[in-house]
């Protein structure tokens, strides 16, 4: 396949940035999207240019590092996949493809398509854990049974990979889906109960402090989420947050 790529280039957070056009030819439909970018970069380097910087690591959809906004969609046209799992068979010969970074003020651009998502880490640090020490001297793992449906729902929430597609897809750059997934995981498990109220308050406060926008219930985040994190998590978080605020915890 022959393609035309319109790629965002930006040399650091202060640079204004611009689109740059690159033709690529001989793309195989079996290639992953990132392998196609590898090919582009190989071509750029051999021509003496500056390759396109982008984040990626596991290339199997689980590390959450890859983050491209492709033709106006986070992780491109596929559903339930990250950029690294998108294959070129989703495109046609002759297509023009526009590739941009996540755009949110809480995610400043590092270079080109790579952005700084450390805001997510700081939100987890504000309370996204159960405060137990790692001594191993806890109860036997089977001492607290957890009903399977509840355990499964907690697991589903816990599968969030922290890629930030939810923020990139939201017109308000809201991080509610990300935060609510972590809040929900612990809210659904007995281990999370003692800190349930303080956790949701601290995490929501940190989220606001990082400059993420508010949720206006458009649901774009859940549509683009590669892991299918459900919108009901946001409802649960809102309920927990209101309850915690009312109780003055």
């Amino acid at each position, binding site marked *: 396949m022959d393609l035309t790529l319109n790629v965002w280039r930006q040399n650091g957070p202060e640079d204004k940035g611009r689109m740059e056009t690159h033709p690529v030819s001989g793309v195989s439909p079996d290639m992953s999207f990132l392998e196609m970018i*590898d090919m582009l970069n190989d071509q750029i380097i051999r021509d003496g240019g500056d390759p396109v910087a982008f984040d990626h690591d596991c290339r199997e959809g689980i590390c959450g590092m890859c983050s491209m906004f492709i033709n106006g969609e986070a992780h491109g046209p596929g559903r339930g996949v990250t950029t690294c799992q998108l294959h070129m068979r989703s495109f046609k010969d002759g297509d023009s493809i526009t590739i941009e970074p996540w755009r949110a003020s809480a995610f400043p651009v590092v270079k080109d398509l790579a952005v700084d998502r450390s805001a997510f880490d700081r939100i987890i640090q504000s309370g996204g854990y159960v405060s137990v020490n790692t001594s*191993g001297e806890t109860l036997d793992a089977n001492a607290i049974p957890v009903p399977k449906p509840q355990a499964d729902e907690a697991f589903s929430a816990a599968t969030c990979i922290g890629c930030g597609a939810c923020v990139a897809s939201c017109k308000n750059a809201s991080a509610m889906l990300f935060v609510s997934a972590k809040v929900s995981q612990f809210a659904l498990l007995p281990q999370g109960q003692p800190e349930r109220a303080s956790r949701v308050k601290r995490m929501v406060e940190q989220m606001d402090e990082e400059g993420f926008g508010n949720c206006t219930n458009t649901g774009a985040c859940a549509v683009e989420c590669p892991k299918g994190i459900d919108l009901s998590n946001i409802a649960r978080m809102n309920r927990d947050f209101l309850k915690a605020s009312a109780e003055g915890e």
Partner: protein
Amino acid sequence: MLDSKIPEGPLADKWTSHKNNINLVNPANKRLIDVIVVGTGLAGSSAAASLAEMGYNVKAFCFQDSPRRAHSIAAQGGINAAKNYQNDGDSVHRLFYDTIKGGDYRSREGNVHRLAEVSTSIIDQCVAQGVPFAREYGGLLDNRSFGGVQVSRTFYAKGQTGQQLLLGAYSALSRQISKGKVEMFTRHEMMDVVMVDGKCRGIIARNLVTGELERHAAHAVVLASGGYGNVFFLSTNAMGSNVSASWKAHKKGAFMANPCFTQIHPTCIPVSGEHQSKLTLMSESLRNDGRIWVPAKKEDAEAIRKGTKQAVEIAEGDRDYYLERRYPAFGNLVPRDVASRAAKERCDAGFGVNETGEAVFLDYASAIQRYGKTEGNIRGLKDPSLAEITELGKQVVKAKYGNLFDMYKQIAADDPYETPMKIYPAVHYTMGGLWVDYNLMTSVPGLYAAGEANFSDHGANRLGASALMQGLADGYFVLPYTIGDYLSQDIRTGEISSDSPEFAVAEKEVKERISHLINNNGTKPVDDFHRRLGRIMWNECGMSRSADGLKKAIEDIRALRDEFWADVRVPGTDDGFNPELDKAGRVADFLELGELMCKDALERDESCGGHFREEFQTPEGEALRDDDQFAFVSNWEFTGDPKESKLHKEELKFENIELKQRSYK
């Protein structure tokens, strides 16, 4: 000169008595001691969190943009623990025995027994942290079975166990970061270790965003930087996984142990073309229910390769379930090395099932029927039709392995619920690594290695679901105790200064190397060299090895290394974000490691575990070990050039297990 420091006494008491007798650092003094942890996977995150919790001042480093991205996240199938929740005869001793046998009798009894002992605490710990393991309807934890064992001791969270465990360790780490006990450095790469008066006293790190070099001093350094499978270019590792931290330590005096022991995982999605950048694993848990086969007739295999016949058209009697045929006792659940070689044997003999001839089938049709029938009974259906049974069976398989099937569908563009998956072995894990003693200290005082970065527990072949166990055992339960023995000598040392000449020299050397790479003005990108190195390694030091092939590989790698330094082109500058430059440094180290791996493989005139030398096999084609001559750990000392590396042997003593030819028949 190598002292493994295995405690005296009966096997089952070694760890307890060691813990009772080692030196401790009192809580007030821990506040005066700094520890650096490189890498934030299971071993690194859990070590950093635990050390900080105990009171040490910790600095943690990862090259990714967040500690949560470390490649432990991609582990799929599960984590072993000798809980015996299934009441199927499991015990600490059985887990110990399975691991020694699975490792083909090339690991240390003392270390492995400790691993089995602490395995149960890991599960307790993770559940307390809110790790959502799979559960049964009664609310208790579920288990599955993995290769090389005959009990169900594997705990799991669908096909995302590594993710859930890492997020657990990451949450513990995050808690310590919020308390200020861990200072976290993301997008930082360790460039060298710094030695002061014969002890490791810090590292030189590079900020990958600004390109600045930084000096970090500490009383001890822990490397939890993972394995080196990416020396093969194509592997199941993440793109950034590298050997550099370990290799830099090796060049400063840490011995590399058994570098040729690499694990080729039997069930990965086959290579699709030249453009391929990495390979994707399909969890070993799939072998619980899937059956592996190739056509029994060559003409059927040829027809499938040409696309004129489909897998489902091959009659049951014309299929060769070769693992069940060759190994009736373990069947599809033989250990990884055995399963991989068996696949290669069939494909080499002309029975491969994709265009390249390098793939076998992993078939779920019979599992779907079996589960469908059981589910029909559970739901009380009377005489369900075949279609109903199939549908119910698919639902059960989806619940168990859904994400893996989705992943396969996405990559291979084929529906594994309808037609068998095609799989082939790929490089997955490295059992070799930095030599460590019982305390996990390398041969360099004050320098520790944990998780996949060390060599200690898996011998010549790792069993499935044991990597997660070892990473967390090292980080949560071993290192936090054993490091105190060394640090107790440091309570009066005071802060280590990074202004010493040793730091200045190390920083200068790093700077020169970077500047050489960036100013080289060659013609070929880094990946060009990496791919070629990978091809040499896969062909000559992969699933089967021979003396002639290894000798040739050593010459080829040396020539490639010279070409790399003369002709690599690294674009951009060294004072900003430049992933190509990061990659160049890593590939330069792989080009040295590859040679040492071949040298190690050449030296070991036997076959054991993942190391299969064509010259040493039984008439049935099984690995032929030589315990009289090779029951030792090969430890390599760097002397300036991988070619001149010096071998030191650590004899392995088996006092509790009888050495036997490993049989899974």
